């Protein structure tokens, strides 16, 4: 919602969404979630399939930027991104996706989602330096696409201890 609050995308256009973990992955419904958006992949298929090169990847921080004014709305990126990050804006008839709030980054601020998260579940890290035993690139339920090499890392949730009263 911090993202919606920041950009007020058209109704139905969501850049970052929160997905409930299935009970096979985490034993309680609506108690553990992945917050997912564009992964700013090392080898972004969105960029590779765009006929008008409406995407570029920033050298300094790797953010994959979509330039909406160049976009002709062909839908290639929307169809080819296996993470479903680019969405179709039905009003502008063009694609759009998470910008990593690059304008905020350039201004020394955090992205809206990171700023808005009350539990610090979202953080920006430098993947070149980030090294944590419990962190994985592909947690259960998150699609594995090594060819794209998504720039994300997940700290796995600790499994809850079940204490149940006999009913």
């Amino acid at each position, binding site marked *: *919602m911090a993202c919606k609050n920041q950009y007020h995308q058209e*109704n139905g256009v969501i850049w970052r969404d929160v997905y409930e973990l299935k009970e096979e992955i985490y034993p309680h*419904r*609506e108690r553990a979630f992945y917050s997912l958006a564009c992964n700013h992949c090392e080898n972004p298929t969105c960029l590779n399939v765009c006929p008008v090169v409406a995407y570029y990847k920033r050298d300094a921080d790797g953010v994959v930027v979509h330039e909406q004014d160049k976009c002709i709305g062909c839908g290639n990126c929307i169809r080819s991104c296996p993470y479903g990050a680019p969405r179709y804006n039905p009003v502008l008839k063009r694609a759009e996706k998470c910008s990593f709030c690059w304008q905020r980054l350039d201004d020394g601020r955090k992205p809206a989602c990171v700023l808005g998260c009350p539990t610090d579940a979202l953080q920006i890290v430098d993947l070149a330096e980030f090294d944590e035993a419990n962190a994985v690139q592909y947690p259960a339920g998150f699609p594995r696409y090594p060819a794209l090499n998504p720039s994300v890392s997940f700290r796995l949730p600790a499994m809850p201890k079940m204490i149940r009263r006999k*009913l």
Partner: protein
Amino acid sequence: MNINKTAEMLLTADAPPIRVLWISCKNVLSQDFDRPKMLEAFKKPEIIVSVEQFFTQTVELSDIVLPVTTLFEEYTINASYWHYWLSVNEQAIKPMYEAKSNIEIAAALSARMNKLKPGSCTFPTEVDPRQWMIREFNQDIYDLFGIDSWEDLKNGPAKAKMHPASWHDLEFGTPSKKYEFRPDLCAEHGHQALPEFKEARKPYDKLRLLTPHTKFGIHSQFINIDWMAEFNKKPYCYLHPGAARERGISDGDQVRVFNKVGEVELEVKLTENVPADVVMMYEAWFKNNSYNCQSVVDDTSSDMGKYKTGAPGVAIHDQFADVAKV
């Protein structure tokens, strides 16, 4: 009046009876208990005026609706429940269309009443909302928040200089400043000074019904806003798989939650997060959706609450209902 029994009060007050209902800063039909009784009660006043930003279920039943300013259109002070922060809300845009702030509406009403019958209303007949806001401050407030002027709040909110924990100074907030095993205060307010066993409210249906607050709103506010609704589209009730099996209910079924008060119809999610003898659904007002949990919550008083708030609370944790597949 007991504010937790709005419907009952509207129906039974007779010395004098309530002839005009003026509703402001509250969505009575979504927040107050026993909706079926409220629908009856709303037939009683000769005129119902509501001051609102949205077309709520309360507005649907009002004779006159006055559009009120949003936080973007007015100067006001924000002080909230459950935290110590105070902030100033500056007007960002002029009020749109016919919207007026609550204070301006009150002043206009006062002006008209005094024209019809001089002296009939003591509220000022002309107010400037910004001046009115400034008058909400005094030295005590400045001291409490460690500021010199309300204008200091333009730099950011201020936090009350209060300790967040009780007993931090090794004193309790009791008259004796000690832990009281036999509090006279309790006895003075109609309770037993010494604890005694009291039987809980007897279940009148098969499942305990819980209607807590949702993370997506405050009572009926915010849930209706388009961009919030993207993440919380519609209401659900939550039921234990065991309770569902007994009733032939599967995950995602459309169900009725019903009791002696009334019923609601919605989709069910099965989860062991709720005990087997509980049905849970959130208090909410969704846009273009008639869902209302108060259709199955009655207004029976709880035993405590009068000392702090002037009226006993409502036994919202002792409500009962059953669920059936539609």
